């Protein structure tokens, strides 16, 4: 960022915020008359006079330097070490549904490894006729598909089980991203190795692991493996980023992110689950009586208002206000999202930017006129199975407080009359 006081954008910001401070009313009415002529209009600005950058000034572009706060963020106290940790997508500052790779959350168990395409190998073995090894180049020769899917960590919103904890949609709901993937169906690769997909598949599983030190091995039932699991190498049109598994990661649509093995190196067809660390000691959900659910793979329908929210307060005063957020379901497509401004007493049905797509993020909008009164903003998603996103109270009644994972409760933001918002729980 430039620290030059004459930086035009900074000057403009100062002007705008000064104007707000001077007379908030002026900017809140749409037809307000300007008191003095705007120098940004009446004076020739440097950018209108000289040149900007030539082509090739940046060979691979990054976001505008004025967007420097739209970044992944970490909650340091959550984990002991950043190489086995997670950070959060700045969902409060994004719109649409596709998450740019550069700010899509990261979750590593032993760090993001550097693995060249030339050094990449994928082994398929176990209960197959012909155990095979594929190179990266081999994978690009199979017929491939494109699909948009969300990837949500099972622990997303997990810190909120016991009560409102983190003040921002990025921190409460940012363990999610949504990308367009290009890859080969796992079914194709299993068939290539001579696995008989028409045989008795009951009790058959695949065990999948990555090339990193954690390996993060997980077991996936064969029905899912043959249904829609993809072995992917591109996201949003370009190669996967290192932190998301370059060169190849597994995509397991609608199911918890921990199954989406990065740097995937091995797929073993087995007679049962391995019951690895990641599927026993972690990613199991303890209920109030001390028993724990296992194999809770699907991510249930969920939504959150991304703006206004604690990191995205209302700065423009009363008048037209766009309330927006994201909704998703791992068990189908979003069919409807309702928004409440009064903590769940009354609900209005929001507008979906596009019809919901299966296991992908859906953007919703409630275009409203804000009178400046306090709001308790909530959103409530429904998917095409008829499932309605539950309240935190409903979840706690069934599961208690110790589940950690799969918290898909309705979130409340208290928006005060000054436009600032905070994370609260309501009765």
């Amino acid at each position, binding site marked *: 960022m430039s620290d030059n006081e004459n930086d035009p954008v900074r000057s403009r910001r100062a002007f705008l915020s000064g104007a707000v401070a001077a007379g908030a009313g002026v900017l809140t009415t749409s037809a307000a008359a300007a008191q003095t002529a705007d120098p940004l209009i009446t004076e020739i600005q440097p950018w209108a006079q000289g040149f900007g950058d030539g082509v090739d000034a940046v060979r691979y572009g990054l976001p505008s330097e004025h967007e420097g*706060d739209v970044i992944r*963020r970490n909650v*340091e*106290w959550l984990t002991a070490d950043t190489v*086995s940790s997670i950070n959060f997508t700045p969902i409060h500052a994004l719109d649409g549904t596709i998450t740019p790779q550069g700010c899509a959350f990261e979750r590593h168990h032993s760090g993001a490894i550097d693995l060249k395409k030339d050094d990449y190998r994928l*082994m*398929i*073995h176990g209960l197959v*006729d*012909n*155990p*095979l*090894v*594929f190179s990266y180049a*081999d994978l690009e*020769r199979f017929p491939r598909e494109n699909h948009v899917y969300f990837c949500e960590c099972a622990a997303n919103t997990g810190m909120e089980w*016991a*009560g*409102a*904890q*983190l*003040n921002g949609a990025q*921190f409460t709901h940012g363990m999610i991203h949504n990308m367009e993937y290009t890859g080969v169906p796992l079914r194709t690769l299993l068939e*290539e*190795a*001579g696995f008989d997909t028409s045989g008795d598949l009951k009790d058959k599983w695949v065990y999948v692991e990555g090339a990193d*030190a*954690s390996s993060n091995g997980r077991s996936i039932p064969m029905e899912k493996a043959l249904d829609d699991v993809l072995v992917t190498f591109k996201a949003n049109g370009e190669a996967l980023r290192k932190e998301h598994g370059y060169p190849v990661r597994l995509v397991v649509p609608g199911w918890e992110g921990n199954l989406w093995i990065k740097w995937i190196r091995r797929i073993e067809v*087995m007679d*049962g689950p*391995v*019951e*690895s*660390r990641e599927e026993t*000691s972690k990613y*199991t959900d*303890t209920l*109030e009586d*001390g*028993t*724990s659910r*296992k*194999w*809770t*793979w699907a991510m249930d329908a969920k939504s959150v208002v991304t703006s206004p929210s604690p*990191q995205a307060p209302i700065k423009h005063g009363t008048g037209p206000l766009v309330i927006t957020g994201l909704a998703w379901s791992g068990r189908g497509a979003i069919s409807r999202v309702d928004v409440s401004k009064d903590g*769940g007493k*009354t609900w209005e049905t929001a507008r979906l930017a596009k019809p919901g797509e299966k296991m992908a993020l859906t953007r919703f909008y409630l275009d409203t006129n804000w009178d400046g009164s306090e709001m308790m903003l909530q959103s409530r998603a*429904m998917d095409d199975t008829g499932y*309605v996103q539950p309240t935190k109270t409903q979840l706690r009644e*069934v599961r208690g*407080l*110790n589940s950690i994972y799969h918290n898909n409760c309705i979130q409340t933001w*208290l928006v005060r009359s000054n436009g*600032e918002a*905070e994370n*609260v*729980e*309501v*009765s």
Partner: protein
Amino acid sequence: MSKFLKSAAVAVAITLIAAPAFAGKFGLGRAALPAEIAAWDGDISPDGTGLPVGSGDALIGEEIFADQCAACHGDFAEGIGNWPKLAGGADTLNYDDPLKTVGSYWPHLTTAFDYIKRSMPYGNAGSLSDDEVYAIVAYILYSNDLVEDDFVLSNETFFDVEMPNAGGFIIDDRAETEYALWTGEPCMVNCKDEVVVTMRALVLDVTPDQDEAAEEEVTESTEAKVEALAADVIDAELAAAGAKVFKKCKSCHQIGDSAKNRTGPILTGIVNGTAGAVDGFRYSKPLKAAADGGLVWTKAELGAFLAKPRAYLKGTKMSFSGLKKEADQLAIIEYLRSFEK
């Protein structure tokens, strides 16, 4: 060999191995060699499939553990800071914040062997021999009071060990217990009589500092609290400094009106309070004993405890290493003192 020849040779080799012995539909990939499968296929199933021949006991394991594991997991597998605790937590699964360890939670011992062999030690994964892994697993079992120190764990004796929580898991039952409840046309108007805020994230102040609005808010509320208590001669400046030091404690301890027991007990009213007195918190045995002996957390006792928790109270569950600076100890005590019951 010239570079050209070398790459030509590689190209020939690739061409040869690119033709699989048994062509699939696309004829892509090559046969996986037995040595390659053996190198990567290390998974161990709950029935013991994959367990290598080998053995080790807790006495050998203790030494290896001290060298290879204790830096993160503690000498007694009790875990240091945020690093995983591997021992303890028996019968805590139905309490607030259960302590989930190999002993209290893991259903299969095979999982421990599988994971340690492939992914531990942290930063040097896969460097342990099979016998070393057996010994480490034996030591973890010993730390959980599940075997004696002379128990020899091997592929032969592996299933002699009973995992306490083996029966503690059920397969995902959301379809039966939740989906039926939460399906159908939801309420749109008059859904509740009244709505009140019952908890605010700002009170906890555990959000990273990037959020300026949140920071200001909390400073205000802390100041307000400190002011309100000024009559009780709280040194506001010192307490404010203590609030900063308290960030070290927040991942485990809550304080204030809506505080709950987490990894550590609620600290509201701790100064000059009786030790071990917070309802619903499972204290360590040594702390319970001290409480039974009449320990009161005076400023002096608390200062001594905070300076070196494990030296002050051997066997304490508090894995914090301690506040070295006396100024920090005094500040945090003043901060704690500003929250009365």
